[in-house]
């Protein structure tokens, strides 16, 4: 068997060269794509909870979306919590990270409530509200439109008489919903009503 083309050292060398060439071109392509395919700010912004609270260190959700598009970490949004981080990770094709505790902890949604008797009508909270959810005018009592409040906390600090409380968003009868079977089994007493489907067996 004397086939000059099937030369083992030569073949190995050729394969090695091919591997190096492919790896290099892959790197180049990756770098090129990384530079040109900047993630869409609108798509990122759509996944953020729009509380406009600034806990991420950016003045609103859109600026944070821009920062993420420029390579900022995705785990700086406490109101969004794990759900938002997972969604962002899926969009950007990166590993989901646990929430960065330096920006706050995940908590249930709250709404601002003005103790109306104590309000002096200074309009400072109205100016602070990023989503125009506070109604009122100078020297008249102010009130929060609970439905539109994002619970961002930004009105609490400017209030000179400290009459704004953050309370848990109320759960009404109509917000009740079905739980998955395991969950209802764990909660036990809280869900007294059980479906009797499949009972006629």
């Amino acid at each position: 068997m004397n086939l000059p083309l099937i030369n083992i050292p030569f073949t190995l060398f050729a394969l090695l060269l091919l591997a190096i060439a492919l790896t290099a071109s892959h790197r180049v392509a990756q770098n090129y794509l990384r530079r040109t395919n900047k993630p869409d700010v609108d798509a990122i912004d759509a996944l953020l909870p729009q509380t406009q609270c600034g806990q991420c260190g950016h003045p609103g959700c859109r600026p944070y979306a821009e920062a993420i598009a420029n390579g900022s970490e995705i785990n700086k949004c406490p109101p969004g919590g794990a759900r938002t981080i997972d969604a962002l990770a899926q969009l950007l094709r990166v590993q989901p990270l646990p929430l960065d505790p330096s920006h706050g902890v995940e908590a249930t949604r709250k709404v601002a409530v003005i103790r109306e008797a104590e309000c002096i009508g200074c309009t400072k909270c109205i100016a602070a509200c990023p989503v125009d959810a506070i109604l009122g005018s100078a020297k008249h009592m102010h009130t929060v439109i609970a439905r539109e409040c994002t619970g961002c906390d930004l009105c609490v600090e400017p209030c000179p008489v400290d009459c704004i409380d953050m309370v848990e968003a109320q759960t009404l009868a109509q917000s009740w919903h079905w739980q998955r079977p395991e969950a209802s089994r764990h909660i036990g007493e809280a869900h007294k009503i059980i479906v009797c489907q499949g009972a006629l067996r």
Partner: protein
Amino acid sequence: MTAESSRKIWPLPGGVYVEANKAPSLRAPVTSPPLPHQLVIALTQPASISPILCAAEGDYVLKGQVLAHGSSDAGINIHASTSGTIIRITPHAVPNTSGEHELCVILQPDREERWTRMAPVENFTECSSELLYARIKDAGIRGLGGAAFPTHAKLVGATNIHTLVLNISECEPFISCDEALVHKYLNEVITGTQILLHASGATRCLIGIEDSKPAAIRALRAALSDPRIELVVVPALYPSGAERQLIYSLTGVEITADTLPVEKGFLCHNPGTALAVMRAVIHGEPMISRVTTVTGAALAAPANYEVLFGTPINELLQLCGVDNENLSRLIIGGSLMGTQITSAEVPVLASTNCILATTHEELPAPLPEQPCIRCGFCVPACPVLLQPQVLYWDSRQLALTDATSHHLADCIECGACAYVCPSHIPLVQYFRAAKAEIRIEAEQVHIADSSRQRFEFHQARVHAEKVQQELRRAERAALMKPAPEQPLEVNSAQATIAAALARVKAKKLEQALSASNNTKTDEGETKR
């Protein structure tokens, strides 16, 4: 006169055969129970509507007087079921799935049954449909099939109705209230159907009834003389009585979850609703009662009763001779779609079609859930041609996008899949939970979108205000300056100083600019 056998029946895909268990409650005709000691009248309104009270605690109210109406047009008028005094208005337990309390009026009957009626209509064929709709709304009529959807809301916007479907199919085990009602109020139901035909402008009415009710079929056949009304007998199969399923069986028209039957020209009503419409129009009586089945092995005398809304369920159970020793579970609705309640201290609502008091032997407790063995029994059972086993995996893993693309929204939650599941998986509960998750996610997206809109508007407004302020300031500054158009005697020394200062300033500015440019290029280089 009524063509009946000629009509083609479209067989339901899927479905399950279940033992009807209706005979015990059908032995006696419908009667009215004695007036209870107290009535608990729930002021429940459709979602996102709140009740507005028209009466106060301590008021004396007449039978048929309005107690509350809805906060918007889609709301329901709630009437006093009998005359008496309002003791309290308070949240009270009601037989709903959530177990949440609802605002209720607690009424002490005076046992005099003093009525206040609306003006009776002599000849409904001379009335416009608007007038009839208004009467139906005033009478607080809700659909009595189980969902208690306001009837006028179903009619509003329904412009091109061609077929009225009267649903006497009643496919769920144990429930026999519609059949009993048809036996007792046959002519009234037919009159109500004619009113609905006239009001909706439909040209024909199809009465869908299961072949397991031969006595009712015979009675209907004998009583029907209107050529527009056609009796159609469908095979007994669960869930043939579901609205969309019945329409399919009768006409072959499939209606998906994203369209309403009304949009396709179908109006589907329960015979109880037809009776209530007849009473509201002909007698001027609002809806204050319904026929309810009280049945189950724990009762000595199961029966159908014409019950006033607000009658406590425990009084009905007592009337039927409940055996508290053997009572295992109390269920509102049938054995497949019903919900279990923990207390009998709840009132009868418009949605209470059946009260089922069962024993362990009759309805054993659901067995523990076991892993899915991929037997595929649930697939042929599904009446909407879904793949329940796939939806089960989606719901279990909360893969909501997958669940949506597998048409979870089309699931009618009939429980046929769970009924045949050999692993006792509570499939419907998984589906309901997944549907709730999808709804919550959509709501959150909606909230975020509106917050974003308001934030952007706020930003734009603040920016515009700032620009305005700057402009005003500039204008004011321009006005304040004496505007030296013709420089008067300028000191030459002063002029040279000013020129020098300006040069220095320009130089500094230039330096600053070049410095910032340098840093920028530096940054660019480091980045590269």
